[in-house]
């Protein structure tokens, strides 16, 4: 009994000492800044920065191959801390949030056929380019919702994806999943978006969607410095300075929406600058 305890203990002790010496002798110098940055990063390993995980990103920052402002889940606070560790000026990344550029749910947009297959947009898209007549609209089968690691996307009862900007961290997982590129990244500070993705001509859009952009140019006439029409689709220039809101009321199909008043009906969407809902309102 004693022999076995001593032997096993001895082996363990020997291994421990040997490993201890080896750890000292073969110590690889890790930049202390790398450890400090790893401490600051949220540790979600979401991959929004482009690295597979937070460890890789910390290494890349120290190596100088990646800027310190790519961690969108961490937000401004993390960027500031990393900048402090690296001894550089904090440059805010101008956080980007995802927006579903479509309002054509099953009530407002027409369908080519009834889709009864898998609840998956990528599967539906493979069958005659999806059940929606609009070639670019949201299919509403929730592939993006399942891809979102932050639970920020929900599908309305009428089959339209909506993104809760409070939960969205801008990791772009949904953008990569959507087979129709309906989800676009927009600056978090912007409140007005063109909620249409169809590049068909106006007359055609009218046939299949009540709320699609028909390229009537009214927004462009109202605020020429902010709105452009490209491929029969209005586009907001987020960087431009101008009266963005003026066009919202004038848009005949209501596809330009001011997010500070909420979108769409019955969704949990909260605009970033809007006053928080009181509990009674939320209920």
């Amino acid at each position: 009994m004693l022999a076995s305890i001593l032997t096993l203990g001895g082996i363990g002790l020997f291994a421990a000492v040997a490993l201890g010496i080896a750890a000292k002798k073969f110590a690889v110098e890790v930049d202390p800044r790398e450890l400090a940055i790893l401490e600051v990063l949220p540790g979600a390993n979401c991959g929004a920065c482009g690295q597979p995980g937070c460890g890789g990103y910390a290494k890349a920052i120290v190596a100088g191959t990646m800027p310190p402002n790519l961690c969108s889940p961490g937000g401004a606070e993390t960027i500031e801390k990393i900048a402090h560790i690296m001894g550089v000026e904090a440059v805010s990344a101008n956080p980007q949030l995802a927006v579903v550029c479509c309002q054509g749910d099953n009530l407002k947009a027409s369908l080519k056929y009834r889709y009864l297959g898998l609840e998956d947009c990528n599967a539906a898209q493979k069958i005659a380019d999806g059940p929606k007549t609009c070639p670019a609209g949201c299919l509403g089968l929730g592939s993006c919702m399942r891809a979102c690691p932050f639970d920020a996307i929900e599908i309305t009862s009428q089959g339209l994806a909506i993104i809760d900007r409070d939960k969205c961290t801008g990791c772009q997982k949904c953008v990569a999943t959507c087979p129709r590129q309906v989800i676009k990244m927009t600056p978090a500070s912007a409140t007005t978006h063109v909620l249409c993705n169809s590049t068909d001509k106006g007359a055609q859009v009218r046939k299949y969607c009540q709320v699609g952009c028909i390229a009537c140019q009214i927004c462009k006439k109202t605020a020429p410095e902010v709105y452009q029409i490209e491929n029969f689709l209005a586009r907001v220039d987020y960087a431009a300075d101008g009266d963005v809101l003026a066009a919202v009321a004038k848009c005949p199909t209501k596809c330009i929406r001011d997010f500070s008043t909420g979108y769409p009906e019955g969704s949990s969407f909260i605009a970033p600058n809007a006053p928080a809902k009181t509990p009674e309102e939320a209920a």
Partner: protein
Amino acid sequence: MLELLVILVSAVFVNNFVLARFLGICPFLGVSKKVETALGMGMAVIFVMTVASVVTWFLQYFILIPFGIEYLQTIAFILVIAALVQLVEMVIQKTSPVLYQSLGIFLPLITTNCAVLGVAVLNIQKDYTFLQAVVFSMSAGIGFTLAMVLFAGLRERIDLSPVPQSFRGTAIALVTAGLLSLAFMGFAGLVKG
């Protein structure tokens, strides 16, 4: 000499650790999505298996048997193998960062790999001499690598094939592993034992 050759063929083909003895299934399924990583893991396993069997062989014949505590074999072997893999990891990290980059993620996986413990225990069970033990463990590692690379090659092709939705991923991988194992059963009888 012939005896060593028999041990080699037996460990690589007939009694392949993964496909015939069903040891080390976890890395076999876990890191076999790409041929490249499978090869890296295989190389690491060959190396660790050989070193581990050398150390455990000496441990068995110079410590456990003289002290009459063979019954502690399993726990002592686990202890030594885990420490050894840690040591190897440290040394490689220091001396060859390039090799560490390619093996680094697989080395910790090997610490708790039953195939490594299996080879150490079998060396003792079969009463191998030191040279036989080294050849056996090296060829066991080669057999493991062969199985890994073959399987990874199959999986790379399966990824591009029209597999029914419900069979995608692990399901088809397990079916394929079973078929590969059946194929290796064809080697049975080539070598006795």
